[in-house]
């Protein structure tokens, strides 16, 4: 926490001494937290690295929850006349599976990576708004728990993850599940929006000297695109969710067809959010593998500007394709034609990326680590999913496929084969950076192959099932409707269910790997992979202030260029080891580093939100309590400065031998 002081003279070993802090009062009565040990160092932290890890742990928890829901679905469909779930519970299961995986696993996991690595990749010491950052995490956690609370209070939401109105109205969905869903997503939406604003400002404003936009690592670029998508897409679903809540709780008529309402209004609002959302899910993984592939190919990324601009192009065109989710609703030939063409067009920048990654591999000295395998897995499986996506863009073909398992197969290939594999690649690549230990490569190999085999067994047969006409969301199939021969439902449903168990084992192997690594994993060397970007130019795990001195950036792939240079013959030669590069930064360490201070307010403010929404469902009195908490925390927040003033740290504690070194610089 807080201020790090160093003795001015470097004759003395440059020991990092954390100055003891005496907090000034934040609201006249409440002093800001200072404890740096135990649970308090997590709960009140504003450190982007700790927040990043908390995001990841939360996301992993929800990944397991969503995974169990998926296994329940597959067990129900494994054999004819499944008895595991009844129709009602089945509806809740697939709704919550999708909601959890999209909003509570992939998005927060990407947010976790972004939080941890963006400041490191751009050479910053923290994010632009550390307290808003902490608030975003807590709002996500409380929002996610709030949605899942519905399981215990009368049943979860059951309208599918896109919750089409009027089906999600009080007549067809009488339980409180949809209320919990709509209000909980408002809370996670606030989390996404604040996170987006924070990261946009961080990336645009807090780059190290010389870190021009076109010198930023691709991961940072893709996260920037994603944050813009979030900032503009989240408010649209906010509107949709408000309309739905007003209809359910206050008798508004937005989706009341008898009153003349347009049933397509919800679909348009949802998909204007929903389609950018799928790029929000996939682009972070594209960013991760664009970091991993060059490192393990021993080559720079092929066509860096093309990868950047195709990512940005996906971000733009992603706004003009939403109605391809609605081809079967009778939009009229012109709309269908326009959205068909724009959907085909968006395949182009994605294809550009695939080509760039492939050509990065081409002629490289490939090193098949687990991270590399997951990245290559993404290229292959995402391409399959992308191609089935292009078949959806052909409207007549899409009309045939709408609401069948073919669609389910498609989006699992792009989301599991794309987003999830990319995230796993990130785990293996960045684990040594985050925790200072190497994940076991042998278990990693098992993890990879089990997941690849499991995923193809689970989702591959769904193409066949869908084209044979098995409807999506069918909770039961019977022997006499299963058909005969090679293409009968029974066989392929069983294969798919077995695949989901293989997949589960694959994920378990990852958890075992994490556990074993934590207990007696190999200590990671400083630069285990021969990496290229700034986040590796600091210790493993990074110090609280990230960099002893802020590096000046002269190249794309700055770290690589500090280690290697061309000799007289134009050959790349090593000129420095990673240790030497790091030593150079340490030798020029800043004398006085002032870090943002922990705060109570982010978690208190975030805690008020689910209380408000809980009250909206049960009793408005409870909402008032939540509102008071929010208001109280907001004032506490506004009256407290993000970074504790220097006067808090002018400690004369004996033994530190410090006075205000460099305090005048601030």
């Amino acid at each position: 926490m807080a201020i790090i002081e160093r003795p001015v003279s470097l004759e003395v070993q440059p020991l990092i001494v954390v100055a003891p802090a005496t907090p000034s009062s934040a609201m006249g009565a409440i002093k800001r937290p200072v404890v740096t040990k135990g649970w308090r160092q997590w709960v009140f932290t504003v450190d982007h690295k700790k927040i990043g890890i908390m995001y990841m742990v939360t996301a992993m928890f929800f990944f397991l929850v969503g995974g169990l829901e998926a296994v329940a679905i597959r067990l129900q469909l494994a054999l004819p006349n499944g008895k595991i779930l009844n129709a009602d519970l089945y509806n809740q299961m697939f709704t919550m599976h999708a909601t959890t995986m999209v909003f509570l696993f992939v998005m927060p996991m990407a947010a976790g990576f972004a939080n941890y690595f963006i400041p490191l990749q751009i050479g910053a010491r923290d994010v632009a708004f550390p307290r808003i950052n902490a608030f975003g995490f807590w709002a996500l956690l409380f929002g996610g728990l709030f949605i899942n609370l519905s399981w215990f209070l009368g049943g979860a939401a059951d309208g599918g993850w896109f919750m089409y109105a009027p089906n999600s109205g009080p007549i067809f969905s009488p339980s409180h599940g949809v209320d919990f869903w709509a209000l909980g997503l408002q809370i996670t939406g606030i989390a996404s929006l604040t996170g987006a604003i924070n990261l946009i400002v961080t990336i645009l404003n807090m780059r190290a000297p010389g870190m021009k936009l076109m010198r930023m690592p691709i991961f940072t670029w893709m996260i920037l695109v994603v944050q813009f998508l979030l900032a503009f897409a989240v408010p649209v679903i906010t509107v949709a969710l408000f309309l739905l809540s007003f209809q359910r709780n206050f008798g508004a008529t937005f989706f009341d067809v008898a009153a003349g309402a347009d049933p397509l209004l919800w679909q348009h609002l949802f998909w204007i959010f929903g389609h950018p959302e799928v790029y929000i899910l996939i682009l972070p993984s594209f960013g991760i593998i664009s970091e991993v592939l060059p490192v393990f190919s021993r080559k720079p990324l092929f066509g860096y500007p093309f990868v950047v601009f195709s990512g940005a192009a996906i971000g733009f065109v992603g706004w003009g394709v939403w109605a391809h989710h609605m081809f079967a609703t009778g939009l009229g030939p012109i709309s269908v034609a326009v959205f068909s063409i724009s959907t085909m067009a968006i395949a182009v920048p994605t294809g550009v990326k695939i080509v760039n990654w492939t050509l990065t591999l081409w002629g490289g000295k490939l090193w098949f680590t687990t991270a590399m395998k997951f990245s290559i897995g993404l290229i292959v499986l995402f391409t399959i999913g992308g191609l089935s996506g292009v078949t959806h863009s052909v409207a007549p073909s899409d009309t045939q496929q709408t609401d069948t398992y073919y669609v389910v197969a498609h989006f699992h290939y792009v989301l599991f084969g794309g987003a999830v594999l990319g995230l796993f690649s990130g785990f293996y690549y960045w684990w040594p950076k985050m925790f200072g230990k190497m994940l076991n490569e042998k278990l990693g190999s098992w993890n990879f192959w089990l997941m690849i085999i499991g995923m193809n067994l689970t989702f591959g047969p769904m193409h066949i099932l869908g084209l044979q006409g098995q409807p999506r969301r069918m909770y039961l199939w019977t022997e006499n409707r299963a058909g005969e021969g090679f293409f009968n439902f029974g066989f392929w449903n069983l294969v798919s269910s077995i695949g989901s168990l293989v997949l589960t084992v694959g994920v378990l192997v990852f958890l075992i790997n994490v556990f074993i690594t934590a207990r007696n994993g190999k200590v990671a060397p400083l630069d285990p992979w021969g990496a290229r970007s700034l986040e590796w130019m600091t210790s493993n795990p990074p110090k609280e202030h990230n960099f002893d001195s802020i590096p000046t950036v002269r190249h794309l792939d700055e770290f690589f260029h500090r280690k290697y240079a061309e000799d007289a013959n134009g050959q790349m030669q090593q000129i420095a080891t990673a240790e030497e590069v790091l030593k150079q930064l340490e030798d020029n360490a800043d004398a006085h580093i002032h870090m943002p201070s922990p705060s109570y307010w982010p978690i208190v403010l975030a805690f008020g939100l689910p209380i408000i929404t809980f009250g909206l469902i049960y009793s408005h009195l409870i909402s008032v309590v939540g509102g008071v908490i929010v208001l109280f925390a907001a004032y506490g927040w506004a009256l407290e400065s993000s970074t504790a003033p220097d006067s808090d740290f002018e400690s004369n504690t004996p033994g530190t031998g410090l006075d205000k070194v460099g305090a005048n610089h601030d």
Partner: protein
Amino acid sequence: MTDTTHGHASSTGISNVKLGMWAFLGSECLLFGGLISTYMLYRGRVTGGPRPSQIFDIPFTSVSSFILLMSSLTMVLAVSAAHKEDDRKINLWLTVTALLGATFVGGQVYEFTAFYKEGLGFSTSLFGSSFYTLTGFHGVHVTVGIIMLMSLVGILKRSKVPGKKAEVVEMIGLYWHFVDIVWIIIFTLVYLIPV
């Protein structure tokens, strides 16, 4: 010296808070975009209760709109006073801005009450639901603005504002102007263009 608080050099030259506020306002455009689209879709759909032309009181709403627009002027004066570090005038103009905003919200409350008495409830028709939702959301935004203005006046009095004073005033100013601009659009689309 790298710090993460405002007031330090940034890569773009724009301070963090200001860039953050712009990003937030960009996001707000989409929020009102969604609400306005919903209203435009539904404004003619009246299955029961009064039609828009039967209840709108254009002269009254024009006056309250004018008052809201004038509050933008006083907000500019507050920002200008903040740059000159004239504490007395900052207080004065922030208070006047808040009062003008409160007058507008008062007008809206009066208008809602009048419409309700004339038979337009929240669930009467699609027009009713979408009208109250759109203008209600705007009213809540103005109210939040008033709370921020008055809090700022209080905080300035105890001179406890973290960061630079002028920047904080400017930040709230940006929000306030945005809310006013949105009202110009809403007023034109909702009240002036006939169904």
